[in-house]
């Protein structure tokens, strides 16, 4: 059966190439859709973990890092640092802004940091040295054609881009400035008279003494400073990922389902066209005594074999597409090889290959062995 299926695949190379590319494209589409979703979750997770804290302090009742306003009283920092086991509570402030240039508006999440919590990596230029320096995400640089040395206007205040990083989450690029920059922005820019309501301290990145009990110190801080909540970076990241899932899961789930339906139809179409094309061969096999079950097995093996051939093509295409998407729109991360998702897709692909092989079942069943003895 395997040999029969294999020979059938090799019989018409052009057709096999077309079917492989078509099926490979379906697999690539599914991988891209699922990878896009996983990429969003990965970005949400990493944006918290990249701040590299042992514990993260938030405003009481605030359990997320992204898309939320957190405002902690300034005096809380000294109280947190007074807790046993705490070496330092590095302040960071998050300011959402809308960057507007060339009449294109983009929401940007500006992270203000002092001693810790800055950009996790600099892919171009250097880190912040002065108050007016800003490090921006690659997606923002690509979208507005910005590079180190260029100016970056925020509500009339001019920053100088000194570095490019790669940090975005929730389809939103990040930018980093220091506290000197933030104070200059507030004082010199047009928002200065109304800055009383701007959060000056959003989070604290707590650095603990080696081998400290994180959970115990977190509870201790919460007991001593009632205006804050304390979480491990993993907990905060998980909260953000869960919030992201509420947004993305219903949409992406439906899109991936459509992808599977396309895959099933493509496999079915290929197998149906193939069987219709060699109906006489099937009639001959039936006349030779091959049972319906064995013939169906041949079709199934062929369908699965085709899938095995096309999976690498699909992965290759998806890798190319992911690279292309990330190059032209770096705000997105396509995470193709998230193990759980990848295995799920592979299993689902075999599932749709099996269902697809069922589509021409009636044609095989109805094939009359007498056809084998009829002329052309």
């Amino acid at each position, binding site marked *: 059966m395997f040999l029969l299926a294999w020979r059938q695949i090799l019989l018409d190379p*052009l*057709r096999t190439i*077309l*079917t492989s590319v*078509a099926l490979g*494209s379906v697999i*690539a*589409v599914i991988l*891209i859709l699922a990878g896009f979703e996983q990429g969003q979750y990965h970005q949400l997770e990493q944006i918290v973990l990249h701040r590299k804290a042992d514990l993260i302090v938030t*405003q*009481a*009742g605030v*359990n*997320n890092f992204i*898309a*939320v*306003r957190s*405002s902690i009283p300034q005096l809380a920092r000294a109280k947190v640092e007074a807790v046993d086991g705490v070496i330092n509570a590095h302040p960071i402030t998050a*300011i*959402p802004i*809308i960057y507007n240039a060339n009449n*294109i*508006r*983009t*929401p940007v999440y500006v992270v203000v940091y002092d001693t810790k919590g800055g950009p996790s990596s600099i892919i171009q230029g250097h880190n912040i040295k002065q108050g007016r320096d800003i490090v921006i995400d690659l997606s923002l640089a690509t979208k507005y054609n910005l590079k180190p040395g260029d100016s970056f206007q925020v509500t*009339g205040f001019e920053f100088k881009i000194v570095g490019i990083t790669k940090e975005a989450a929730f*389809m*939103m690029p990040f930018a980093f400035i220091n506290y000197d920059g933030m104070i200059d922005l507030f004082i010199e*820019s*047009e*928002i200065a008279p*109304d*800055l*009383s*309501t*701007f959060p000056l301290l959003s989070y604290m990145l707590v650095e603990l003494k080696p081998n400290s009990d994180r959970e115990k110190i977190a509870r201790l801080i919460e007991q001593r400073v009632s205006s804050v909540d304390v979480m491990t970076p993993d907990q905060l990241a998980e*909260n953000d990922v869960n*919030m992201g899932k*509420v*947004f993305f899961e*219903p*949409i992406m789930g*439906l*899109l991936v389902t459509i*992808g599977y*339906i*396309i895959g099933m*139809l*493509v496999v*079915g*179409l290929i197998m*149906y066209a193939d069987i*219709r*094309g060699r109906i006489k061969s099937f009639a001959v096999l039936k006349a030779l005594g091959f049972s319906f079950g064995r013939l169906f097995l041949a079709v199934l093996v062929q369908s699965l074999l085709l899938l095995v051939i096309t999976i690498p093509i699909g992965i290759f295409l998806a890798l190319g*597409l992911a690279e*292309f*998407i990330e190059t*032209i*729109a770096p705000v997105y991360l396509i995470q193709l090889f998230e193990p759980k998702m990848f295995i799920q897709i592979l299993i689902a692909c075999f599932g749709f290959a099996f269902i697809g092989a069922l589509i*021409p079942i009636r044609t095989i069943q109805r094939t009359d062995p007498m056809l084998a003895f009829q002329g052309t």
Partner: protein
Amino acid sequence: MFKWTWKSLFSQRGTLVGSALGIACTFILVIFFDSVWRGESLQVVSYPSHMKPNVWVMQSGVGNMHMAMSFIWDWKADKIAKMPGVKRVTPILYMNSVVSAAHTRMFAFIVGLLPGDKRAEPWALTAGRHIKKPLETVIPDVLSTITNVNVGDQLHIADKSFTVVGLSSGTYSSANSVLFVPFSDLEKILSSTGTYSYLLVDAEEGTDPDSLAKRIRDEVEKVNALTHDQFVRNDLSLAKQMGVDIIIIMTAICSTLAVLIVGFTSYSLVMRRRRELAIIKALGMGSMNILISVIIQSGILTLFGFTIAVLFALFVIPYIPLILPQLTLAVSFTSLTQIGLIALVVAILGALIPAWLVSRVEPATAFHV
């Protein structure tokens, strides 16, 4: 020739149906993606669109509402209220946050309303009433369905617990649910006093909104004032920009997939009719006619697929939110037309390989046994 094309296509109904469905699904994928994007973008501007003041006033440097932060002193509202041509000024406080409803945390926009404010309150309630007392909230009815948090239940914003007193309609979107709370409660959450986020300025009859907005910008320091249309346009363009590149990419990928399906089907049909084509050629039919026939064949195929996709878009997509209420979908005729044009390109490209094969068919093969 056209008759032959038609007959050869319909001689294999299974292939035709399978291909048309495959093509339809690729177009459906694009249409669905587009509908989500358009639906969410429109829903993002739902609140400002329904409020419809003549002029929106906000902090200088801010030009929209979605994902923005704006604060202006309260005295500026008083100053604007006294300006000629101004009928009424309605201040709101506004914040992006994550709300916890039952076990669900989701991104939402919170609007703080002054006591007795009818102007900026939700425009339609499906259950309960508007907010009257502190720590009350009106939430979107869809949010209630998803989280099972109903009138009388609690919901958390930052460290404050609110009692749901009403459910509003038309205020939900995955990216932008709008919740209403008392102004003073939101002030406490924001640790702010004496500030507003946006001012909804209603002009007296006969006042030109453009000139009123300009006067406010000129006479009140450090504020931005935009006409309602401009403000909504800014919000909509911001919302549409987020995700537009992924829509274009997905359209390209799915169209390529459709080309491959059309190509495969046309190729299969041509390969099976090679001898017939050879006979036709041997009988003196020109290659151009046969090529046109192949293009017509792939055109018919694509048309079937596209028609199924359009029917799906018009008659199924609008009902998907009944099963998945968290989705806001908007089918646009513009995008259907665009996809129609793409389908035309798909049909031509899909015919290329079979056309090439047809051109290579030797009339002599008609006489092979």
